Each structure stands twice: as C-alpha cells, then as structure tokens.
C-alpha cells in the first residue's frame, strides 16, 4: 500500500537523483578503471563545479536570470562553467596528488591517503576563501510544479537534470566505447604496461580520464548547486552516494555507473512512502551490502573494458 501511494512522484524524484548520482559516479568509475583507485577527492571536484558555475554566472549575469530560450542558455553556460571548473580541479588533482605517487609506484593505500588529504585540503580551503554559508545560484525557473505525469507534479529542475544528464551520459558512453581516447582508456584500464607498448601515453590518458570524470563531476556540481546552493561541504554526501552507485553498478564499468546511479536513486526514493526520511541512507547502504554479498562485482560487473 505504502509503496504505491506516491509511486509516480517518488519515481520521478528517484530518477532525478539517479541522474545526478550517475554523473558523479562516472568520475569514480573512469578513474577507478584506469588506476584501480577510489578517487576520494572526487567530492571536491564536484564542489569545484558548483563554485565555478556560481562564479561564472555571477561574473557574467550578476543576479539577473533569464527566461525562455535565454534560460536554456543560462543553464548551459552554468553547466559549461561547472564542467570546466571540475575538469581543471581534476587535472590539478591528478598532477599534484597522484602523479608523483604513481612515479614511485606507491601502493594503493598511499593514493587513498593522498586523496583524502586532497579532499580535506580542497574543501577546507574553499570554505576559507568562499565563506561557510551556502551561496545561492539564482535559478531561471521557479520551484513550482511545471506539469504532471500520472498526477505527480514535475518541476522544471528535474527536467533540466534529466536532459543534461542523459545527453552527457550518452556522450561519454560514445567517447569511451568508440573513440581513440576511449580505446586508450580501456587499454590502460586492462593492462597499462602493454598499452604503453602499443604507443599509448599512459600519463596523458590518465590525465584525460581525470579531466573527463572532472567535467562530468563539475557539471553535476553545478546542477546540484542550482537547487541547493553551493557550499564547501556540498560534495560529501552526494559523492558518497555516487560512489555507492558506482560500486552497485560495477565499478570501473561506464554503463554500470549509469545503471547504478539510477537504481540507487530509485531505490532510495520508492520506499519513502513507507519509512521515515531518516532511514533513507540505511536503505541505500543496506542495498549496497546485499548486492555486494550476492554479486560481488556489482550489477553489471567490473572493469572499464566491458564498457564497449
């Protein structure tokens, strides 16, 4: 009974969450694929996207918002700025916190610690520089229901997320499965040394992978900030959830990340008719644990190679 009660509304918010998770999860999955490394600082890449979007929109439009087609341009500009910000931070992150370690073939735990360090550093310095209050990104649309599906109100924000996410996800899927960059990424993921014997510049591929993940993470950061504002701690929870989603779908697997994001988003939302909001994360982690126990490589299995 309680499951069917608000089924459509919950499904819609689940999908919106899921798309956001998927965008972030892709960053984890790509980096995991090539480095077998959980990029703990991806949450800060996400945050940087939020701030970049905020600053660029402030600098160009101030607190004016646009309407009609202008608002499409507004959101597109924000996404582009967020993606750029995320990409730049991801690139720097790889240069500073990972590459020196890779050069000396540090064990994975060292990468993990370095990542945690980078995460601490980045979000705290963001707090110091940009203040500890959430900054509002003025949205070019209202928060009132736009139209409804099966009686469930849909807000413009959800539509924005869905369109932006689907197009970006399709793009990345194409990049990874059929471009040269994608082939390089997959080759490095499967056997980096041999890839270098094939003429793949490993360092460059890794950089590009980080940037690719950063672009998506940053764009997600802007999309998230468009509703919730941007603040230095904004990355933590969404990123943790997205990481869960990546593992759920099969980490290192591009389509797995997308699927995992959607599954997690929906799975978190649907039972909300039955249980208190506060139990939401328990459900999310519970599902993760159960999936891992019965299917230890996630829903679609691991490895970037399978992404084709």
């Amino acid at each position, binding site marked *: 009974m309680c499951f069917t009660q608000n089924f459509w509304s919950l499904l819609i918010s689940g999908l919106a969450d899921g798309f956001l998770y998927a965008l972030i999860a892709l960053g984890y999955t790509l980096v995991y694929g090539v480095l077998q490394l*959980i990029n703990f600082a991806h949450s800060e890449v996400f945050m940087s996207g939020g701030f970049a979007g905020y600053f660029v929109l402030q600098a160009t439009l101030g607190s004016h918002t646009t309407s009609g087609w202008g608002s499409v341009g507004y959101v597109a500009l924000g996404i582009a700025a967020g993606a750029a910000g995320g990409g730049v931070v991801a690139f720097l992150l790889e240069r500073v916190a990972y590459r020196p370690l890779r050069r000396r073939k540090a064990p994975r735990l060292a990468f*993990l*610690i370095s990542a945690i360090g980078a995460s601490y550093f980045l979000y705290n310095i963001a707090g*110091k520089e940009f203040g500890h209050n959430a900054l509002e990104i003025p949205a070019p649309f209202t928060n009132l229901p736009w139209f409804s599906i099966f009686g469930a109100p849909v807000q413009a924000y959800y539509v924005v997320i869905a369109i932006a996410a689907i197009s970006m996800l399709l793009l990345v899927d194409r990049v990874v499965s059929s471009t040269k960059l994608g082939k390089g990424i997959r080759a490095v993921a499967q056997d980096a040394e041999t890839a270098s014997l094939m003429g793949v510049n490993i360092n460059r591929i890794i950089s590009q992978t980080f940037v690719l993940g950063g672009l998506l993470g940053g764009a997600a950061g802007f999309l998230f900030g468009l509703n919730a504002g941007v603040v230095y701690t904004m990355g933590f929870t969404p990123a943790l959830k997205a*990481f869960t989603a990546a593992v759920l779908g099969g980490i290192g697997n591009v389509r797995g990340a997308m699927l995992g994001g959607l599954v997690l988003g929906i799975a978190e939302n649907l039972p909300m008719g039955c249980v208190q909001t*506060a139990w939401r994360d328990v459900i999310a*982690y519970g599902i993760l644990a159960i999936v891992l126990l019965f299917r230890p490589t996630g829903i679609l299995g691991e490895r970037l190679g399978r992404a084709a």
Partner: protein
Amino acid sequence: MSDPLELTEIPERTVTSAALPPDQRTPWHKVVHNDDVRRLFACVIGGFVLALMTGPEGDGINMLSGVDGALRFPHLGICLALTVGLWVLITVRHRFGERARTASARVSALPARLLPNAKFRGLALVALLALAIVYPAHLNGYWQSVLVQQVGIYVLLAIGLNVVVGYAGLLDLGYIAFFAIGAYSDAFWTGALPIHPPANLNPFWVIPIAIATAMLAGVILGVPTLRLRGDYLAIVTLGFGEIIQIVAINLQGVTGGAIGTGTIRHFALHVLGINYVWGLDPLPYYYLLLVFVVLALFAFHSLEHSRIGRAWAAIREDEIAAEASGINVLKYKVMAFAIGASTSGFAGTLVASQIRFFEPGDFTVQLSILILVLVIFGGMGSLPGAVVGAAVLEWLPQYLHVHPLFGFQQQDLYIYFGAILILMMIFRPEGLIPSRRRRIELGLAEHGIGTADAMTAGASPSEPAGLP
C-alpha cells in the same frame, strides 16, 4: 649520429636533458622537463597556495575577497620567498650536496642502527614508560585532558586499527562504529539510556562487557563482509559506520536519539576493600588508559610475531596462495577485525565514562578516516608508528593553537592537515616509523612486485596486471 632534434616530432617525449649528451641543447619549450625548473615551477605554485592557506578568511559576500587579500604584496612576497628559498636549498643539495646527503642519511640511520640492539631497546622502553608515568602528573589540567581525550584515546584507537589495516590489510572505514558500540554499552549498563539494563553493574565491570560487545559486533559484521574485496570492504564498512550513527539518532527510545545519553557514571572499583572512583580529574583516567595501551601494545606485538601475524602477512600479500597453504583466510580476517573492534569499543567506553555524556554526532565518518590517517602517518603495520603518529598528529595542532608564536586559526587546521597528508604520501609514504615488513613490501612494489597492500586481494587468479 643524426640530429637529436628530429626526435621532437614525437609528441610528449619524456627525454630528460640529463640523458642527452652534453653538447645537445634542449629547445626552450622543453625546458620545463628539466627537473630543477620543474621543481621551481612547483615551488612557485606552492608559494601561491601557501599564501592562500595563510591569508585572510574570505567572506562569501564579495566574491574572492579572501583570494584577493591573500595575494597582496607583502604576504604573497613572504610566501614566495619561503618556497623559492626552499627550492634553492633543494637545488643546492641536489647539485653539490653529496656530503650533506650522506651526513643526513647517517643521522637518519642512527635509530635504525640502535634499535636492533635489544639491550638499548629495552632500556629505551623502560625510560619511555617511566616518562609516561611521571611526566603527566606535572602537566596542567588542560594538557592532562589533551593527553587523555586527544592523545591517549587516539593512540589506543590507532594501535587497534593498525591490527586491522596494518596487519591484516583490511581497509576499515567504519572503525568508529565500534567506538560508538562501546560507548553505548557503557551508557546502557550504567543506566544512562532510556532503556534500562537487566542488572545494575558496578561501573568497572562494564569494561569487559563493552569490549565483548564490540568484539561480537565486529564478528557479526565481519563474517559476511570480510569475504569482500578490499575496496568493497572499505565502502561497506563506511556504510556500516553511517548506519550505526543513523540508528543511534533514530532509535530515540533506545539510545536517547540526537539529544544524547543521560549522565553516565564514572568508572568505580569496589572489590577487595578497594574503593576507588574515577572522577572529573583526567589524570586517573590517563593511568587507566596507559595500562590498557601498554597491555594492548604487548599483546599486538606478540601477535605480530606469532603464527597469527605471519598468517596475516600472507593474507595481505596473496590471499589465494594463503588459502592454498591451508590458512583459513576468513577466520584470520575476522580475528583481526574483532581485535580492532574490541580495542575501539574499549576506547568508546573510556570516553563515555570520563565525559559522562555523548551524542550520536560524535561518531562521524570523518573520525574513522582521521584514525586511518593517524595509522598511515605513523607507519602502517608498525606499533611504534601508530603510537607516535597518533600522538604527534593529535598533539601538534593543540600545541600550535595554544602556542603564542603560532596561534594559528583552529579553523584552518584541516587545510594544513590535508596538505601534510599529500606531502607525506609523496615524500615518505611508508610513514614516520615504518615497519620492516612494510618497508620491504613498499620497496618491492616500487619495483613492480606485489601491490604492498591487500586491496586487490580476492581477485581472480587470472586477474591481469594493473599499472606497471
């Protein structure tokens, strides 16, 4: 010999100038590949970052006011001077510093040469213990409190987690959950929770019960999840940590919820005519803690060098080979997990008893990560490392904060903390005081043998190689 410049047609060449014969000049746009120049570049950027780190707080109203304030002349100048000065030092050392290097190597090798000497080691340990007993009594209340709540507790937590991460190679990101379980056990048995215990216990006997409870929780969590691979274990334990916190918040009728517990009774001992109550004064708690830390150190040291420690080492390196050699991998993992959990549980009990109150907000994921950082900073798998790492990282910020000369803003602490972690991993990944085995593993990993941690363990035998 043909013109070396022909090679520049190939993009992204990594020829270093050192590899070329001296008569071949490097084109200008390749200059950054020169190690000195690259380091200078890094140092200049470091200077800017340092300026940001030490600069004024931004206000979130005027965009980038903090950045603006930080990058003004005198401040930026000082920071740049510092980092460029560092570059000069490094460069001089690299170019002319053969002598300096050997000298410093000799100094840093000193402890290593002395330590294997059993007599020296014994003496040093006795001296340290004496110091640990006598010195704190001369500190003021604040430092005593720091010694218990910051240093002591975290030392205990770190040596416990060291068993899990350092010995068995299991990445546990939910370690603080067991701390919470210990603390709630204490609160429960002393009647500080909304639900009441079946029997009223002498508050000292709570300790073994809390330890056993935490251990049991470790086993219950461990048996299903320790079959999982390294990274998955990390995320599942992370989730477990979150779940414990959420449950503690939500089950208001059981735990008191977000408001926290009632007033917990201090430890008290009433046996054989001894009547002692631990009070508000931190010092008695310090000694209790010291006893447990010393016991734990002794126990874990023995374990490390027993067949159990060897089994852990084997599992860490190659789980499949360990299983094929008759080692019950799951059993040993659960054992490590349970030992770590019970240590964490005891720490929780002690904190609960001393402060007499706690709330679910005290058990954040960040705390689990912090303890992990202490272990790794000190040197994974090394008991002295865990002790020193925890002591230094917990004590130093307090010191810097209080000391008039530094008195840096507490709110900037984690910025420095993050920077230290990155620099540490780049320049000394084995930690402050590395264990012998760990150093070997890292060395092997650097030469492409093994991965130096069990994070990939459990992968299929035909798993292709990762990075070179």
